[in-house]
């Protein structure tokens, strides 16, 4: 009973660490990106300053905003908090992973997106509608690709539990599985689309007619905007940690000793920093796509994940 309590306490601590570290990752990406593009870089903790500023600001609401508009930031943040709680960050075998498996995780993202899109339609501006319509189109294509990639992993590990699956990859050692390679590519492409990064969307602009995510939340301000921004930073972190967990889990703690946890924390920090650099390179060399190129991009991701699944069934099970 006592060890169970410790495990739950650790799980709660990990979830808190997760949401606390998310702005840091965003700040790191921002900083590396500025360096890569020869611009003066803000401090790594600039996102914290932004959040603090937004949380203190006085609220301004559009006159047509309904109760739904005011509830959405909390729902979105709640969904992301839950999602963050089930993803193994520094240790596997934590009991919180049982709350939700991979499919529920995808559904948490869908829940957040559903309500964000509704908030976009609430004010009745053309921008909000545009953002909502486009975001739902992109997600309708990204979600099956993501689930297909996730199914490949879960069929390999015969579980949809995130912690157990990570543990399985960890245990089976360095085995080269072609299916994982395809799944990794597909998942990365979906992650880029879902976290509104270049080339699907550009998180840095509010001025283009091509914006997707930003168009939906254009009317938000103050603490509402803070929650939504924080939630999207958590989302970026979740996708990064998922990729790290599934494909490069080495270093993650399997026991709860202090040394193991420290190693796990350091390992995941190093891996995320490296992943952020890759993301920056990707975002710097690629240009944003036209909106109707995005379905082809995501269609390619879906084909890759389908290929991953077929490779798994044909090559790796051999019943």
């Amino acid at each position, binding site marked *: 009973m006592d060890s169970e309590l410790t495990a739950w306490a650790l799980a709660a601590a990990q979830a808190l660490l997760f949401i606390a570290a998310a702005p840091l990752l965003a700040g790191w990406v921002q900083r590396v990106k500025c360096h890569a593009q020869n611009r003066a870089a803000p401090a790594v903790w600039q996102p914290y300053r932004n959040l603090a500023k937004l949380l203190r600001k006085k609220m301004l609401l559009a006159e047509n905003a309904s109760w739904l508009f005011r*509830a959405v930031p909390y729902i979105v943040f709640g969904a992301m908090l839950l999602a963050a709680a089930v993803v193994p960050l520094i240790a596997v075998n934590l009991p919180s992973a049982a709350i939700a498996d991979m499919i529920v995780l995808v559904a948490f993202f869908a829940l957040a997106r559903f309500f964000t899109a509704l908030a976009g339609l609430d004010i009745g501006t053309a921008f909000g509608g545009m953002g909502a319509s486009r975001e739902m189109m992109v997600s309708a294509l990204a979600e099956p690709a993501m689930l297909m990639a996730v199914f490949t992993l879960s069929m390999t590990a015969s579980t949809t539990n995130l912690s157990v699956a990570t543990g399985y990859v960890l245990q089976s050692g360095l085995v080269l599985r072609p299916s994982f390679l395809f799944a990794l590519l597909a998942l990365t492409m979906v992650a880029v689309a879902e976290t509104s990064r270049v080339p699907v969307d550009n998180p840095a602009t509010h001025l283009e007619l091509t914006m997707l995510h930003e168009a939906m939340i254009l009317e938000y301000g103050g603490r509402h905007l803070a929650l939504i921004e924080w939630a999207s930073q958590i989302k970026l972190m979740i996708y990064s940690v998922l990729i790290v967990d599934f494909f490069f889990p080495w270093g993650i703690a399997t026991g709860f000793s202090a040394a193991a946890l420290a190693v796990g924390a350091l390992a995941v920090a190093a891996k995320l920093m490296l992943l952020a650099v890759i993301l920056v390179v990707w975002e710097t060399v690629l240009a944003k796509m036209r909106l109707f190129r995005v379905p082809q991009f995501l269609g390619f991701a879906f084909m890759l994940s389908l290929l991953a699944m077929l490779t798994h069934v044909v090559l790796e099970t051999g019943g």
Partner: protein
Amino acid sequence: MSAAGGTPLLLAYAAVASTFLSGAISLFAVRRHPGFLHFGSFLFLFLSGAASIVAGGWTLLGKHTLTGRFALGLPWLDWHLRIDPLSGFFLVLLGTLVVAISLYGPSYTREFARGPAAQPLPPLGVFTALFVLGMQVMLLADDALVFMIFWEMMSLSGYFLVVYQHQHAANRHAAFLYLLLAHVGALVILLSFGVLAAFGGGLTFDQMRAAELTPLWATIAFACAFLGFGTKAGMVPLHVWLPDAHPVAPSHISALMSGAMIKMGIYGIVRVSYDLIGDVRWEWGVVVLVIGTASSLLGVLYALMQHDLKRLLAYHSIENIGIILMGLGLSMIFLGSGHKMLGTLGLIAALYHTLNHALFKGLLFLGAGAVLYRTHAHDLDHMGGLIHRMPLTAFLFLVGCVAISALPPFNGFVSEWLTFQTALQAPVLKNGLLRTTLPIAAALLALTGALAAACFVKAFGIAFLGKPRTRRAARAREVPAGMLVGMALLAALCLLLGVFPTTMIQAMAPITQLLVHEALPSAAAQGWLWLTPISPQVASYSAPFVVAAIVVVFGLGYLFLKRGAAAPRRAYAWDCGFGQLNSRMQYTSSAFSQPIRRVFGGVWKVDEQIDTLASAGPIPRVTSLHYSLHTHDWSWLRCYVPIGRVVLAAANRIGFIQTGNIHTYLKFSFVTLLVFLWIVS
């Protein structure tokens, strides 16, 4: 008879009698006494629904199987009745919807009592009662005769309900199509019972259960039943009647049709294949899975293009029937391959989704009815901003939207999650093709779910959010309390079934024990908090945690952010300096779905027209612009129109025998009689 002394069966009889009284009393609801319909008829309907729930729930939880026998009709053909966990489950489903509409109906039907939409009231009450009566007795039927009589009663009274507002030609057309396909379906069902009765040597279900069928004849019986019941359920491509018929009926009837009537098709498929035939084959499962996947995907894609709210909901019924069929198909594949536990899981997923769909689709149709009641608008583009004028309706409708979009923590998510979990167990199958097909079906289910979410963002966003698009929408007000209570009941059940799935699955165990002699003991092994369908290592989900987390975030947000902060200031949204934003600048429903229409281009036959009117003068300028968009169903154009053409041509060919001369007709009758006598002797 078991120890309970047949009480559940007596309660079921009481429910039937109460429905009958409800119909009888509404005969008196002439124009001067509408109260007979509003109070009398709906009161008895309420009692009937409540009795159905108790009877069904008692049977289900007590694992009873009770039979009854009536010497009615022909002297050598008694009527056999039986209530068992499966029929109990569907009685609960039906009873819940009947209770909800009997709370909702008294206010809603006032519209028909007076004013511009006035209609004679007795037919509405009588046919509603007959419709419910048909479903209730059909669920209790234990022989093919009773089953078919009451199946037909349900179908026929449904016709009169669809055509209730018969002044519109579209309603009459929809009702005719409904009647035609209902009868084609009934004929095929009759063939299926014919095969079973021939092998069993009698019309009772007990004889059919005992029948020893060869695989070929079993497949024929299954195919006929699947076609016939599938027509009623609305599977692709036999769905064409559904999106026409459901929207034109009065809204509480639409709720009953989409919520309960099409589920009777599912009941029929389960009853015939799992219970009467018994020996399920995996090949059938493949067919059911493929048709289910096609139905769900096409249903949601067609729904996305609709701008009539009730028609959009009707297409979603096709989608959800597809999801239920996918569950059934998976169940048959696993059962037929000898994996009993996984087959049970698939069956549970399918039945759970059946109940869930009844609840949220009933809720959504009642919500659409509430909007119709206040704004008289069918078209999404004539609504808008209703969340300010009808906040409670908006909230309840939103619950339905979230539930049907399969988002946690509501009920739609649980059953889809169970379907996913079943499909992911594909690696246990020997057949390599099946191992690949099942995950692809699961991915298509994911696509369906994502598109459904897009569709309900559109439906809720265009109808309830933004600014009012018409004057009627701007003046709408909240509907009467009775209608809200009816909707709130269904919304509360949507949440409860989403948060406590483990308890529900335990309650459903007697059904699977009856049908496949297996329960799902692992599902609840970790207590009510955790849903672990296979084992905690493989997959788990805990909805109470999800609710708790969202509540905690709201609580913390209130404590630390909202409390003590100044009240937010209201201001106009930024209009880019061009002056006031108006309601015409908002996204419309067609605009919202335009990106998806472009991505999935070939699925619809799109008819897009832009008419511009230019002014006279040396330099023509556009003075008016009219945009119209129609999307047509390929299955109608490619299947039904050619069939119709062939039938018409054939009828013309043999038209020459119709001379109009009575002597010729007598001659035909005489020859026919001789031929029959020759066959018989």
